[in-house]
Structures are given as C-alpha cells and as structure tokens.
C-alpha cells in the first residue's frame, strides 16, 4: 500500500523494536477502533430485535417508538424492558442487547433512589453509576471518544496552520518573516484560558452540542497554532540553505514544488515527534475546561465532568473518580509512550539515554 523510502522504513522498524511504544500503539489503535463502534458495545438501543418475524437493527437508525414493538408508548423503546418482556411471554420474539445495555444519559436507579451505586456486574453497571444513577462506563466511553476525536481534530488543525505559516515564514524570510514573527509574539501573549472562557461564554445557548464543540475547538486552535510555527520556521530555514534546495531552484522548480515535495518531507520527522504530545495537551485541556465547567454543555458525557463528580463524592463514591482518573492516566500514558517511541525512532542520533 504505502511505498516508504528506505529511510522511513528503517525508522518504522526501529519504532517496532521499542516495545513499550509499539504495544501502546497497538492498544491505542484497538481502543480507537472499539470507540469508533461504541454504539454497538455500549448503548441502550438493542443490536438486533426480532419482532413478529421482522428483524430490526436500531443502533444507527432513527428511533423506534414503543409502538413499533407492540408497546403502548410513542417514545423511544426501552429495549431492556422489551427484552425482559419477551423473555417472560416466551414468544418467538427476541432482543440482543449490547455488552453494556445503557446509554450515557439515562437514570437507572435500583430502588428508585438516585445515588451513586458501586460497580455491579449483575445489573451490568460494570463501573458503577454516578450521582444520578447513570452508567459510568457508558459516560466514560462516550466522553473519551469525544475527547480523543477532539484531540485529533485539534492536532490536525494546529499542524495545518502551523506548517503553512511556519514554512512560509522560513522560506520567504525577510520582511514577511519579521512581520509575522511580531504578530505571533503578540498573539501568543493573549492568555489562552481566559480567551476560551470568554469566547465560550458568549456562544448562544441555541447552538447545538456539536456546534458548541466545534466552536470550542476553533477557539483552542486559534490560540494554539503559534508554537508550531517556531519549529517549522527554523527547520525550513535550515533546509532552505541546503544544496538540494538550491539545485531544485536552479532547475526551475516552483516555490510550491520546492516547499511541498522537497522541504516538507525533510522536516516531517521533527513534526511527527511532536504530535503525540499535542494530543496529550489537547486531552488535558478539554478535560480541564470541563472540570471548570467551561467545556462541553450539561449533560454531555465527558472525562472532566466525571472527574468533577468524582472529586465531589470522594468519600461516598470513590469508584467515580477511580474510573475517570484511571481512564485519563491510561490514555495519556499510552499516547506519551507512543510519543517517546516515535521521538526515539525518528532521532538521527543512535545513542540516546532513552531506551
């Protein structure tokens, strides 16, 4: 599929040799794959319903009112109850529920009292429930997915802008470089957290949740792209003065061609090493914002919100904070391990202290 040059192949081979990083990468990949299909694993909607000879797959479709399955209500079917009812009546109908049959929003109080409940495999609350009897695992899974998606989107955007501007600065130099450097200096001195809080507080309440998340992303990107330009600028400067660039110029290659096909691949290795750490900081940032109450709107599941609940109920419901904190540690460590491994394997110097 990919046709890497020998240099890159060598780097990849080295990456594979760094076991911690490599296995972290595999674990994270599997996690990402699972998160991508989270609706099939953690959901209050059934995977398959067989009702009166027809098969239904409600997971990704429009909602099915209870009336679709012979129930007497027009709102979303409660598939857990449906399953129980089918079992009782011993009909030919059946339901297959996901592994965790709860969504991230519903209150499922055992004895009609909403309170945090300890992990209980029999009720399929594998990590327990939060203060209003919502399944913690469900909230974790969907919260993590949002955080990761957010982090990746953040990274891609920041790099796109950073690379573009950084390369241009380094390549064109002169007044353009000088001017932009000053702009960046001013821009990067605007306190990022305040700006996020201020901008986020003026979003109209009518905005939908995805719109709010996108906006939050935009604001964060707007104030985070600057650091990337420094690296890109110096790297481009360095590469620009190399002979192969001069050669390309003499042949008559266009600026565009020189930047994209000659310089960029050569500075990429620097970039790649930064990526995991950008992701780490993005996850930390969104979690922190949530914790402070400036992140995702209530009741969107999020790691920060769970952490907050957990710290508020440290004495009475330690499982909340354990779950949230554990997840955060796991993800951040995995990404950091991968990052260190990439840095190591892309490092041209063979002898480093890290191993």
């Amino acid at each position, binding site marked *: 599929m990919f046709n890497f040059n020998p240099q890159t192949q060598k780097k990849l081979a080295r990456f594979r040799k760094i076991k911690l990083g490599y296995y972290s990468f595999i674990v994270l990949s599997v996690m990402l794959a699972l998160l991508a299909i989270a609706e099939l694993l953690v959901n209050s909607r059934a995977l398959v319903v067989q009702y009166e000879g027809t098969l239904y797959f409600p997971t990704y479709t429009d*909602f099915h009112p209870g009336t679709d399955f012979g129930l007497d209500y027009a709102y979303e079917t409660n598939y857990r109850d449906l399953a129980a009812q089918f079992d009782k009546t011993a009909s030919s109908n059946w339901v297959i529920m996901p592994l965790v049959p709860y969504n991230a929003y519903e*209150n499922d109080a055992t004895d009609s009292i909403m309170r*945090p409940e300890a992990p209980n495999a029999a009720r399929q609350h594998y990590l327990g429930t939060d203060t209003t009897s919502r399944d913690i695992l469900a909230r974790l899974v969907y919260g993590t997915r949002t955080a990761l998606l957010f982090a990746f989107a953040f990274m891609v955007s920041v790099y796109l802008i950073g690379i573009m501007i950084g390369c241009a600065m380094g390549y064109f130099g002169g007044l353009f470089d000088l001017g932009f450097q000053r702009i960046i200096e001013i821009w990067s001195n605007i306190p990022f957290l*305040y700006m996020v809080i201020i901008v986020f507080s003026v*979003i109209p*309440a009518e905005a939908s949740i995805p719109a709010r998340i996108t906006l939050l992303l935009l604001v964060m990107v707007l104030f985070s792209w600057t650091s990337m330009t420094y690296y890109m600028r110096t790297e481009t400067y360095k590469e620009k003065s190399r002979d192969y660039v001069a050669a390309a110029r003499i042949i008559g290659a266009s600026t565009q061609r020189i930047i994209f096909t000659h310089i960029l691949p050569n500075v990429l290795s620097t970039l790649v090493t930064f990526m995991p750490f950008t992701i780490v900081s993005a996850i930390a940032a969104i979690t922190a914002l949530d914790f402070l109450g400036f992140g995702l*709107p209530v009741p969107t599941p999020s790691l920060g919100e769970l952490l907050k609940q957990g710290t508020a109920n440290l004495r009475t419901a330690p499982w909340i904070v354990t779950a949230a904190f554990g997840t955060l540690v796991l993800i951040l460590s995995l990404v950091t391990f991968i990052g260190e491994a990439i840095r190591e394997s892309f490092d041209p110097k063979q002898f480093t202290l890290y191993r």
Partner: protein
Amino acid sequence: MTINRFALTLITVILMGCGSDQDATEALPSIDNTAEVLAFYETHADFFRSGSIDDLPQDLVWEDGAHLPEVGSPDAKKGGTEYVRLADFPRTLRTVGPDSNGSFRPWILDSTSMALAHRHPDTLDYFPGLALRWAVDADSKSVFVELDPKATWSDGVPITADDYRFTFWFFRTRYITAPWYNNWYESQYTGITKYSDHLISISIPELKPDTDSKVLELRPLPQHFYKEVGEDFLERYQWRFAPTTAAYILKDEDLKKGRSVRLTRDPNWWAADKKHWRYRFNIDNIHLMVIRDTAKVFEAFKRGDIDQFGLNLAEFWYEKLPATDPDVAAGYIERKWFFNERPRPPYGLWINTHQPLLDDQNIRLGIQHATNWQLVIDQFFRGDYSRLNTANDGYGPYSHPDIKARAFDIERAVAYFETAGFNQRGPDGILQRADGTRLAFTLSSGYEALKDVLTILKEEAAKAGLEFRVEVLDATAGWKKVQEKQHDIHFSAFGYSLELYPRFWETFHSDNAYDKAFLDTGEINPDRKPKPQTNNLETLAIQQMDDWIIQYRTESSAAAMVTLAHQMSELHHDYASFVPGFYSGFFRLGHWRWIRYPEHFSYKHASGSQEYFVHWVDEAIKTETLAAKDSGVTFPVQLRIFDQHRKTP
C-alpha cells in the same frame, strides 16, 4: 445572558487591574444634598408633613409587643467566632441599586438590621425593634409610631424622625437606580408626619389586613451618611459600609476583596439589652469566606473550617453525612431536622412567554405535562420534598386550596403539542412541525447544585417529544440572564419573606413585563419590549390580571383579598407559564458540637436555623471537642427531629 457573562468577566479582569477603589471614592467631588432634600420636602409638602403632639387622635390603641416571648435562649453565651461560607463575593456594599440584591445582603441588611418592629417567628405578632410602641389609626389610614429614644446608629448618632423622612426621599430618588423601590415608596405610602424627634406617623393609601406591617417593617437610613447621594450614588457608595442598626458592623480592613468578609459584633450596639434582642446575635465575629464550589464547602465543613452546613439535599443527609459518618457517630457533628410553616419559595420553571413558541398556550400546557417533577421528588429528593402547586403556596388562606400542579402525562403533553402544530417525531424522537421547527427550548439555571434536576427533566421531557437544552450558569450570571429577560425557560425560585399574603404585582403585573404592554386603546402594543430588572420572569401581561392586582392592592377586607388571590392564582394556573416544581417543608442542618442552639432549636415560621441568630459558639465545648477528636473520646449521637409544625399532605 451570555453577553453579560462576557461583560462580567471583562469587568473582573479590569477590576483586578485597579489599585484601590477607596482612592477613587475620595477623588469624587464632595456633595451635600441637604438643600435638595429640604426642597423636595417643600415641593411634596402633602407627603412630608409635620404636626404637633396635640393633633394626635385621642383614641389611639397603643401596642408594644412586650408580652411576646423572648427570641433566643437565656443560656446563650456571647463571644467566639463563627466561620461561614459565602457563595460569591458581594459585588457591592450598597443595599440598593444594581447588583445589591445578592446573597450577601442579608448579612448587612435583611437578617441583621432592625426595623421599627418585627414579626415574632412563632406567633407572627410584632415585637418592638426601633419603635417603642405603635398604634394603627383606621380613620387616617396611618400608623403612629413612637421611636425608641435610645436607638442610635452604629456610629453613635441618634436615630430620629428625620432619618425616616429622609428614607422616603432616598427611595424615591432616581439616583439609586432601583425602579422597584421608586415604585414601592411612591405608590405604597401617602405621607409621613413628624410630631417630634421621636414620634411619627406614616400613612398608606389603603387599609390592609396587615396595615401595620407596611409601616412597622420599614428600616430607616442614616441621613448623615447619605448626604452625599447624588448622580454618582452607585459609584460613590459602591464599597462604603453604612452606619447600621444591626448588631454587626463591617470594618474597612475586614473586607478582603474576592476572598472574605468579617463582621464584628458592635460592642456599643444600642439594643444589646433590649427584650427580644438580648439573646440574639451572640457571636462576636462572623467570618464569611468565599467558597464557590459546594463540594468544597462540605469538605471545609468536615474539616471544621466551617461551623454549620445545610443538609437540605438528600445527597448530603443520606449519603455524605449519614448517621454512620464517623464524626456524626462520635457526636462531634450534630444533625437537626426542623419542619416549618411559611411561604414556600416557588421552585419551578419560569417560562418566558415573550419568546417565540412559548407565547403559545398549548405549548406551555404541553411543557407542564412534560416535566416529571414527581420523579425528581421521589427519586432525586427521596420523597422528602413535596410538589408545589402554585407560585404562592404557604400563605394560609391566601394560597389556593384546590389548584393542583399538572401531573406528568406524556399523552396529554403530546396532544397539546400536536394542537400547536408539532405533530411528527423527528429522527431523534423530538417533535417537529411540518416545516422542520423542532420543539426545543433552553432550560437555564443558576443553581449549579441542582443541575442534576435539570438533566432528569430533560430525559423525561424527551419522552414527550420535548427537548430541553440544559444551560447551567453560575449564580450571578444565571440571575442576570433572567433579569435581562433573555431566557426561554428558567429554573429558579424567589426567597419569600414572611408576609401575611402573597404579592402579585412584582411577578404578574404587565408593568413589570414590558415597557408599555398595552396601547391606550387596550390592544396589545406591537412594539413592546420586555422590561429588564423586574421579577416578572414570565413576561406575563394579561389585562384581567392587571385589574385584579390593582384591586388587590387597594382592597382592605381580608375576605375579598383572599378571593382575589384565588382568582389570580387560577388565572395564572390557566395561563400555564409557571411549572410549579417542589418545596421542602423543612430545613436540615449539620453543625459542629460547639455551635449551640436553644432547646426548641428554631421557630415555626423560620426559613433557616441561622435566620434569627439565636445560636452561639461555646468556646469551652470547642476546645473540648477538638481535644476529644484528637484523643478519640466520643459523645452521644445527636439527631433531633422537630416535627411539631409538620403538615401531613
């Protein structure tokens, strides 16, 4: 309103950059309004009258409330320091004007300062404060009051009739930027007569079942302090603590901006030995610390950094501080549960009828049936709370006896929504109109601690095809939002003071809904704009309601007022712009052992245990308890339930 949060943050940022506000105040030009005030008295000579003692009606029946039982306990010890949590730092020390009506004001005004007389929290009769005795004269619609000549301000200046006259000038000026006060003092009083330095009478337009309360609950203002009131009042008095009649004073150095406020018991307080007052305000220093986060407050309480903690929420009573808690089981922390009887704060959803869709009564009726308060009460509050039925529950005969809040009923809700054109469910189960308009509203609140209530309502409403977009703001921003009338639906409540009958003008009169709700022809004004800074959170403007409110204001017979109150409650219920939520018929408290209360703990009509300042700090017990905590000595468990005033539903 989000713009305001923006402004607020900005202001905070700017303020942080400022040095000392004190300098700013000093830099203002000096003002003396004495002449202006006198001129005002002259031009309003029919209001500001003077008379001679000989003019007094002969048949006055003087009352002095002396027979009423003491408030507080003779066992109370003076001294000590109480540590209290403050949810937000006060944004001003003014007691009127923008931003003044916050959670801090009770500490320097509502709960601590003295009025002419106060309702006894058990009997509702008046016991004397600044007044020595008083008499109601029905003929002249006046209340005659003899002032206690011993009364002084905290700076030692005697309180005289002139301070009362000045109070009327003050609350009627536009300088204070407080339209509610302007209106109240212009419309609810018709004159004040000074007979001598310590004898006044105050007249009101109509006799009421509680005529005396209108006058007796007045609190004077120190004229000598407010002689600089002028155009720049808000700025000039922003951080100045006014001489007070209260037991507690605030020294400049005890105001740590953004962090804490310390109140000190005035050693020269004039009422220190007065009956009904001598066993109250026992604690020498009240140290108020800003702790915003409720979870943190609880931790601070458990550490003993804060002395008392309200346990009204089931989460705290049953989970976080149950009988099995080590500190409770060892008797270090005592728990109390007191059932009271008083006007209930109307917790519920205030629907802004000015917003599109919400002006449709069918939608409002649908929302009524789509909110599952019973589930919140049963599962979230564990059945301790009860369902509120109207916005004015707990006023005895004035509350409507029969109106029942609409129950959660998906079918009826859907039927109402269908009438309003929302007849199909979208892909996510939320109702839609044929043109794709979704049945979705923002449900905002400033109650961070009750945010779970909103998410439960949201989940349940979705069953009826209604979407609530939950927006939880901090307390100040939330209140600002409704005051600007920018909300769709807001979850909130009013703190009702102890009154005989409910007020309707504030919440239901069209004057408080729009700048000009109706044209002179009686038709709806097409260009009307919602009026900010009023308590008409529903932007409710019904002419019939206005008429009844005016009648209610002028009515003097209790029976007729009851009828009117019922009619208005019915109309309000039919209009369906308020979804009654819940009320708690009690308050619960956890406190460290060294905080002592009278044997009967609290009063029938009290809203909270700290309201009357009858508790005290016992330093000896504090030392003993802290030592016991270290050495592991325990005390008997203290859980007391006071249910003599409990109403079984």
